[in-house]
């Protein structure tokens, strides 16, 4: 009888210990595949969440505005698990925020991905037309005055060091040809007129009721009080010139786009596992 008691006690203690060690609790790993892919209800919920939380940067069509085009993420080889992690944890050093619990549950993330999958585009057929080397020359001649790649180029326009990740080829083509207006915050064109009639042209970095902060066309950053100016005018036309076929042939555009696609930024080694 006594040994039974002892055995039971030992068993009980062992079980208690196992419970305390969480041995009985299965911690579900993040699934490698989206458990909600194709689920109609999840897609609907994901659409709403996507539009509210993601579309501002990535666009209603997911083809990218301030944030990257995300219609080709699967075509480029990213996995569901990696995409889950990107949404959940954000991308450090970029504008992509983390969406942690409790504000965003795991299910919310899978729903968003289920919706995003419905907009996924295939990888482009065959190798892209154009020559990256020739494109780099086109870039140097036409773009580098305002745009920077790595250590080289101007500061008036957005830095393009990782534009190959951030934009789809077609979106870049639209922008260069000038078929879409671009008024990104921080790059809106503005003209300040001094009381003496002198004009200061540049892009608007910030503003409030009383002041405006600009980078002028000589790249001088400076704040001005509105009361010191005769006028502060927001220009209707983007500071980015349009490059019609008269300025840039189709062949040159293809070269340029191919070059831009090679611009992938400085990828820290540890972020590789997340792709």
């Amino acid at each position, binding site marked *: 009888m006594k040994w039974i008691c002892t055995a039971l006690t030992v068993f009980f203690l062992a079980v208690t210990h196992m419970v305390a060690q969480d041995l009985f609790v299965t911690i579900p790993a993040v699934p490698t595949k989206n458990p909600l892919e194709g689920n109609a209800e999840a897609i609907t919920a994901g659409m709403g969440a996507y539009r509210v939380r993601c579309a501002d940067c990535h666009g209603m069509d997911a083809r990218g505005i301030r944030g990257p085009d995300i219609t080709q993420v699967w075509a480029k080889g990213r996995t569901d698990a990696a995409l889950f992690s990107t949404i959940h944890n954000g991308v450090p050093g970029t504008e992509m925020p983390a969406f942690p619990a409790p504000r965003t549950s795991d299910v919310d993330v899978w729903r968003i991905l289920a919706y995003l999958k419905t907009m996924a585009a295939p990888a482009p057929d065959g190798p892209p037309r154009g020559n990256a080397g020739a494109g780099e020359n086109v870039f140097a001649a036409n773009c580098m005055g305002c745009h920077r790649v790595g250590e080289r180029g101007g500061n008036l326009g957005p830095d393009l060091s990782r534009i190959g990740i951030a934009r789809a080829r077609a979106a870049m083509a639209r922008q260069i040809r000038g078929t879409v207006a671009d008024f990104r915050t921080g790059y809106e064109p503005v003209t300040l007129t001094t009381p003496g009639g002198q004009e200061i042209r540049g892009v608007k970095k910030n503003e*409030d009721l009383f002041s405006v902060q600009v980078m002028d066309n000589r790249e001088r950053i400076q704040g001005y009080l509105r009361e010191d100016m005769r006028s502060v005018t927001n220009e209707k036309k983007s500071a980015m010139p349009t490059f019609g076929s008269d300025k840039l042939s189709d062949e040159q555009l293809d070269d340029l786009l191919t070059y831009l696609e090679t611009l992938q930024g400085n990828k820290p080694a540890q972020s590789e596992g997340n792709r």
Partner: protein
Amino acid sequence: MFRRSSTRFALAALGATVVAVTVAAQAVPPGLVTSQELLAGLPADGSRWVMFGGSYTNQRHSPLTQITPDNVTRLVPQWTFQTDISGSRFETTPLLRDNVLYVTGPLSTAWAIDARTGREIWRYKRELPPTGTLTACCGLVNKGFGVLGDRLFMTTLDAHLVALNMKTGGVVWDVAMADYKQGYASTIAPLVVKDKVIVGVAGGEFGIRGFIDAYDVKTGNRAWRFYTIPGPGEPGNDTWAGDSWQRGGASVWVTGAYDPEINLLYYGIGNPGPDYHSESRKGDNLYSDSIVALDADTGTLRWHYQFTPHDLHDWDATEVPVLADLTIAGQPRKVVMFANRNGFYYTLDRTNGKVIVAKPYVVTTWAKEVDSNGRPILLPGNIPDEKGSLTCPDVTGGTNFWPPSFDPAQRLFFVNAREVCATYYAWRQEYVPGERYTGGAGQRARGPDQRAYGALRAIDPTTGERRWEFEYISPSTSGLLSTASGVIFSGDAEGNFLAIDARNGKFLWRYQMGSALHGTSALTYMLDGRQHVLVPAGTTLTAWALPDVQRVPSTR
């Protein structure tokens, strides 16, 4: 038995004598905060600010006149206090009593601060559950203390109400109002009426059933509870389909007003849940998006008025109700004024809830007007769905919880209004306890034809007409303070603290605070003979005064 209680009585009497002797030994002690003091509101001498809206009317209009439209440009900072709590901000109305400020901060913290120097006297910090488990929808914030006697009252993010010792910040009592794990939280500034502390709960996005509670100031025992969603058998329960009333939201997170003459409390009630997908909650959904008038002693409902029946746009009626006595069409009227998130400004008869004025004060596309029965006449095309529908105003609304002010001399209601539209989406969502339960979302409309901006507007409460406005380049979320000398203190979203002329809306003065006044109003009071203006912005409090006014230290 008799002997024991008589001994106890004798001891108590002796204790009372000791207290009386001690008190008498001091010259002019400020003494305990009394009910009379609360009833008196903001005193002419500017010596105190002892409740959320300054007085039970919530007018936030100071009688002080040392700072004027002419000299406000000379204000200089006296000191700045920093919370050292990053990632969250002040949404509080500090209290001032006997030259000490009592301030609640984010994450259920609080301070007593020397109003002369900005130096901390004591600090309270509640041990909260892990922040990941707290369900406050919109920031781990707090809106301020209530006070009576030697006790401060404060709600907490885990849905408790605590009473603190004014002298030490020590906890006197602590009661749980609800279970935070079920989606409840509390951020509201308590209103003390007679011997009760009136509070409410947040959680309208988490499937709660809202309520207003009254607790005994001495014991913390609950005196009454008014459920903002009627239960089975109660009038109004049939305005909720099926069992949707159980998780219909109708939260209470903005301090109400009180009329001592008729002993009624006035509270604005939050949105019904799920916010946007409403199929599960067919009906008007009382008392969501309503103002309720409750007997202050019993919590009994006297009347209600629902601004937005069967709301689809998250338009909580959690704006600050403001009381005034006005002459309208030759008749003296006791009114409650209310600029609602739904885009309409209302003047209601506060004795019976009847609509006197209802008029849009921002672009409003969901309702044509309010009919003679007080019901909005809806316009088509404003039902959120999966594709999205464009409606004005947006989710945040024509205005929101940031306090307005009222100038009784000019008879003008001042409010920071927003001109923003949104695309509203809705989808079906299952309820999971403690999780967000909104069934959709609203996305602010953008684009060249969708200019979003804000304006400080002066509204004539007898007509709803706009008298003047001061425009901001983007929507402001700042509360207001006005003074008898004709200065309105406001803020913009870009971090400017602003003084505006109350007579015409003209700009007077500004200072860049480095953070917007989000939901906070400036406070004003007299200290050592100088009028001070105190500004909670971001994680700082900054006190201002005129440099050329002789300081007369109080000798108390």
